């Protein structure tokens, strides 16, 4: 075919629902594929570690339903990557189950679902390490040690196009992917239909965040990418949005430390020589991207490990003298926690809104305190009972902080709640690494099923 069209309705399926008007406009443009990525490591380590999604299932179901019905109506494949934020096995199973339920609910004609898993057994990593393979740290992470591996609850490998291509070759109608590079869900169909890797990976790069490559700013709107043997074109589907040279070129740098290159399992996309051209009001044409295959396949690994159970509490301060001495108030409460629990074996965090709550150590105006402060207290400990007591002591004792010249001696802080509340357990990113593999399917297990 002379060109291939893919619409993307959502840059992170499930995080907020897709907007229907521009999605329907995209469907009317008769795309050859409907695809979206559902994952991100932006949501922090809690969803991966606790094997959950960060948003209600209703939002995920909303998008899957619109996409599935449109894809079946058009008779074109639907592709979802990084199911349920993390792409863990349980999220893939959840999405496959939702697709089957939706098929029954709407009485759809039978179709085939392909899916693959991305979770990696820590024993596999350990074996590789003991055989002398290094698991190399990215972005300031040290190379993996067995101790860090021991502290890890769940690992996913980030797929490139390979498992998608395998399923597309098998002719499935719907693909639910485990953790994947965002761009893979768009690059794979383009490669499958014989377009060059140079253009296919750029197509993926520009479509991955849906309307973030359009202007004016507005998320969750559909954009359409079109790949030919000569170029990539991207068009905004929302009536008020346009894909401009500035919005498309600007998107290449979004969420990336370097705007000129992007790494995948099997190579990297080089955008140094990209040329952008406005071909109509809503469409920008891109040429000049290059895909440089790597000699050996290295795959990114993401891992999360539990730190402990967590309780949180809130308080406010309005007395200017107490505000000026907020660190002494916090130190007082920290001391009381230390007297009860010692120096180690728990975490106690104070986030001072109105001073540096958002930016912490990066806040240049740390000395300019607000006329009132809100303080979030977090207690993290091995058991829920201990976490509750750490948080509550760290919060309650702020009330009793002994400041030498305070006028209001009936209590140093205000409480919006009497209690501390249980929050998600605390996790941390343990793996942000890469591993070299001879066969990429050692990491990704591909399956098919009927709906």
């Amino acid at each position: 075919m002379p060109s291939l069209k893919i619409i993307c309705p959502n840059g992170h399926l499930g995080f907020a629902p897709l907007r229907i008007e521009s999605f329907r406009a995209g469907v009317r443009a008769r795309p050859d594929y409907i695809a979206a990525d559902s994952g991100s490591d932006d949501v922090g380590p809690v969803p991966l570690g606790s094997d959950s999604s960060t948003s209600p299932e209703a939002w995920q179901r909303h998008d899957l339903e619109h996409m599935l019905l449109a894809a079946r109506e058009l008779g074109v494949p639907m592709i979802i990557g990084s199911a349920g934020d993390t792409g863990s096995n349980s999220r893939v199973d959840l999405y496959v189950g939702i697709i089957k339920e939706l098929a029954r609910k709407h009485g759809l004609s039978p179709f085939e679902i392909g899916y693959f898993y991305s979770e990696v057994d820590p024993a596999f990593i350990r074996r590789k390490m003991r055989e002398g393979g290094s698991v190399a740290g990215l972005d300031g992470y040290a190379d993996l040690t067995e101790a860090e591996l021991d502290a890890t609850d769940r690992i996913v490998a980030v797929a490139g196009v390979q498992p998608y291509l395998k399923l597309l070759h098998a002719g499935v109608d719907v693909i639910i992917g485990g953790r994947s590079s965002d761009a893979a869900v768009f690059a794979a169909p383009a490669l499958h239909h014989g377009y060059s890797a140079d253009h296919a990976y750029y197509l993926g790069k520009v479509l991955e965040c849906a309307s973030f490559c359009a202007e004016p700013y507005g998320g969750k709107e559909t954009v359409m990418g079109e790949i030919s043997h000569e170029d990539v074109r991207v068009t905004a589907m929302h009536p008020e949005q346009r894909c401009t040279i500035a919005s498309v070129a600007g998107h290449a740098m979004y969420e990336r430390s370097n705007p000129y290159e992007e790494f995948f399992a099997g190579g990297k996309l080089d955008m140094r020589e990209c040329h952008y051209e406005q071909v109509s009001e809503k469409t920008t044409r891109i040429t000049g991207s290059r895909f440089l295959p790597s000699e050996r396949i290295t795959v990114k690994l993401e891992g999360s490990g539990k730190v402990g159970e967590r309780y949180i509490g809130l308080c406010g301060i309005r007395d200017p003298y107490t505000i000026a001495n907020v660190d002494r108030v916090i130190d007082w409460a920290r001391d009381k926690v230390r007297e009860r629990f010692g120096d180690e074996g728990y975490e106690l965090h104070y986030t001072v809104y109105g001073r540096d709550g958002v930016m912490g150590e990066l806040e240049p105006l740390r000395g300019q305190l607000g006329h009132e402060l809100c303080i979030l207290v977090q207690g993290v400990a091995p058991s829920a009972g201990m976490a509750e007591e750490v948080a509550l002591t760290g919060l309650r004792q702020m009330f009793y902080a002994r400041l030498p010249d305070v006028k209001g001696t009936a209590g140093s802080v205000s409480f919006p709640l009497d209690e501390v509340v249980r929050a998600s357990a605390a996790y941390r990113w343990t793996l942000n690494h890469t591993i070299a593999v001879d066969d990429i399917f050692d990491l990704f297990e591909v399956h098919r099923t009927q709906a």
Partner: protein
Amino acid sequence: MKAKKLGELAKTIRSKNAGVNKITFDIIFRDRATYEAVKLSRAITRASMAALYGIGQERISDFVEYDPGLAIKFTIFRRAPSGSAGDGDIFGAQQYAPLLDVPVMLRTTHP
């Protein structure tokens, strides 16, 4: 020479995670003339950004003048990976605010 605030000159000033251990900052201009003028002013450099955020220059992993995007872009290492307990900005989305008021001395064509 006249001083303007970066927030007046730029179309977009934003911050966002770039992976789990970095935050990237994008300063995007409407037109090439403004972009070139800001580059020429040397108001936004690796050194000035390190000073603004009170960090050592080694904390800045990348500093790029990105001509196709009419943008100046830099990336810093986080103190702790995103979403660690105590992290106040899991997405890194609100770290750009100090850039808005950075003074930029523009060379005027009419001295």
